[in-house]
């Protein structure tokens, strides 16, 4: 039965920050790496911008979504991942607590942003996905990134 829906459904990568689940369109993700490398701090940058890393010879800025969303920074553990997203020609790493799975969401299981309120990360919301009672906050990557650029 899913066959018909697959074409319309979008695939999302689900990751966790604190107790919440977030989703990013999988088409925007170029890779996920374990946080086992040093992040080089860049001076004179907002706190959530943790610094830069070397990803196969390319210098990529990395930001902490926790700090971005006003959560407290935590200690990185073996669950911590950096999701490298690619928007146009810009690659950016997002540090998340852990990566859960890939889910498919279609129009029926997605609600637009206007129906929800009270989220901390509201500014960066694109919608909310519901899946078997789970609530997955879908992020608008462009907004996360563009706001950054304006801020800096």
């Amino acid at each position, binding site marked *: 039965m899913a066959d018909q829906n697959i074409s319309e459904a979008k695939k999302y990568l689900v990751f966790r920050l604190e107790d919440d689940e977030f989703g990013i369109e999988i088409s925007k993700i170029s890779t996920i790496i374990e946080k086992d490398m*040093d992040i*080089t*701090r*860049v001076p*004179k940058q907002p706190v959530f911008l943790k610094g830069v890393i070397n990803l196969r*010879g390319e*210098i990529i*800025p990395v930001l902490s979504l926790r700090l971005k969303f006003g959560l407290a920074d935590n200690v990185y553990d073996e669950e911590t991942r950096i999701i490298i997203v690619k928007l146009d020609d810009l690659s950016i790493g997002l540090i998340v607590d852990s990566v859960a799975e890939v889910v498919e969401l279609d129009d029926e299981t997605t609600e637009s942003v206007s129906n929800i309120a009270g989220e901390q990360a509201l500014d960066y919301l694109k919608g909310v996905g519901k899946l078997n009672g789970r609530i997955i906050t879908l992020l608008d990557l462009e907004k996360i990134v563009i706001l950054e*650029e304006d801020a800096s």
Partner: protein
Amino acid sequence: MDMSQYLEIFIEESKEHLQSLNQSLLQLEKNPGDRPTLNEIFRVAHTIKGMAGTMGFNKMSKLTHDMENVLHALRNDEIEITADLVDILFKCLDALEGYTANIVETGNEGSQDSKELSDILSGLLANKKADGAKAPEQAKAVAPPDAKGDSGITSDLVLDQYETNIINKAADLGNNAYQITVRLNKGCLLKSARAFIIFKTLERHSEIIKSVPNVQDIEDEKFDFEFTVIVLTKADEEAIKKDLNSIAEVDEVIMKMIKEKNEAAPGIQAEETGVAEQMQALADLKQVVAQGQNKTDSASKKTKTGKTVRVDIDRLDVLLNLVSELIIQKTRLEDLQGIERTQQYVEAIEYLERITTNLHDAVMKVRMVPVETVFNRFPRMIRDVSRELGKEVELEMSGVDTELDRTVIDEIGDPLIHLLRNSCDHGIEPRELRKRLGKPECGKIELKAYQDGNNVVIEVGDDGQGINVDKVRQKIVDRGLLSRDMAANLSKKDIIDYLFKPSFSTADKITDLSGRGVGLDVVKTKIEALGGTVEVETELGKGSRFFIRLPLTLAIIQALLVMVGEEKYAIQLSSVHKIINITPGEIKTVQKQEVITYRNSVIPILRLREVLDVPGESIAEQKVMTLVIVKKGERLTGFIVDKIIGQQEIVQKSLGRYLSGTKVITSATILGDGNVALILDVNALAN
């Protein structure tokens, strides 16, 4: 047919040819009688015409065709070279450049046609015809096609002394000279192609020493249906005739042996134009030879092709990136821990080091472009600007073969244009004033490039009025930038620095303070973005000189690695002046700025730990502190660091646009351990 694949080549070659046209025209303007230059211009115009025609750019082709007609008349001394005429040729060049620019952008030459120019050009030719009685009309006088009609009798060609000599010499060697007139079938469509075949056929057994009309005209189909050549051959008359007659569309071949031993050949007329004709004949001869070698396409013939390959710059970038990766890995190998460093290991590493260094040098060399590619548009610009201003300015360029990395070359043009225009506009005084001051009326601007260590220096100097420091000082006060007292205390150098400030440059455009200031901040910003510096030396009444210092390459640099807290930073080695140890007692505070005395001068110092907000407790005042003294232009600044790691060859990597706003960092590099170290922006920090 799909031409797009040739478009790139067309554009590249057109640019080259237009450049060479530009140079030749400038030379012609200086030296109107220079025949080789004229020939070169003709050749280039002809080549462009052929290329444009092949690509179907008819307007370009038409314009060059008209140019060619005029140039041809010039070569035959039918019209005279005047300043106006050179101007028109320059305008033609501009039009051609316009077409090319259009082609680059849109793939077609655009709708603008150059009818006006063409009209002027044909007007010039009409003038020629008007007093054509005086001018030796070679082609008509010698072989008037109509006059021959069906009679089959061809008049003798006019031979000049040079040709007569050749014929006589040849006769001594047992060669006969023939005058061959070939008449083509009236229905012949590709006359020039047919003529080409006839030439090739003749060349099989003979040497062509003259042709009327000349080869150029035959190629361009500027002949009716017949042409005459003089050949030297050992072959039998009949054999040649037979060969020629076997070519399709040849109606008639008339051969006549030329037997002349006497020096004063009967044909010698128009003694005055003899020299010109000789040159013409020589040029034609060369062309015949060239044609023989290059039968592919008579239109796009090139006299020589060097052993060069055109490579897309992107491919070179890929190559450079790979070399960069290699260097990073090499460094990593050197730094590997826990390996037994046997002699073999050390030797292998050293060998690898040598190879990577050489490889890097080689790749960098490939990317190097002589500054000439930027400089060569300046003579024209100076010419135009000085005319516009009614000044007489001479541009003297030297060191044009100094090489810079392609990426630098691409960026350096605009700042230089700016400085040159400035010199022209505000540096060089008006003619009358110069006269009054006892200076040569013709102002001089010098553009010099040379290598200095790991830098390339470009100097722009003029012998104009120099910068009036006091006026600038006044301006600083007037603009409310500083109080009168403060301004009075500024050194000459500090005053001049104000000219590079953005607030200053937006000032009234043509200022009386020798006008320097319009956009000098733009120049400075651009040069500094390239990792370079700008300095000025000026003397009132004597002139000013701008020094632009640029790094040879942007990609791979020698750097000093330092530790600040737990963080590693790189400082470009070329800006490091000295590393010294100081004690806390040496640090004094002047106006809240920490300074030390170094070699009898007071230099400001910065604690990098604080400036860069490095986390961690600052270590209690050590007994000895390490101070890295960097120089920015002539100014020294000291950076206090925690530890010196050492010198290393590093590969600069862009931080990307996401972090492009970071002030104190220029770029980053990847260290041997795979981690990223940031490269400090010495200029920004020292400010």
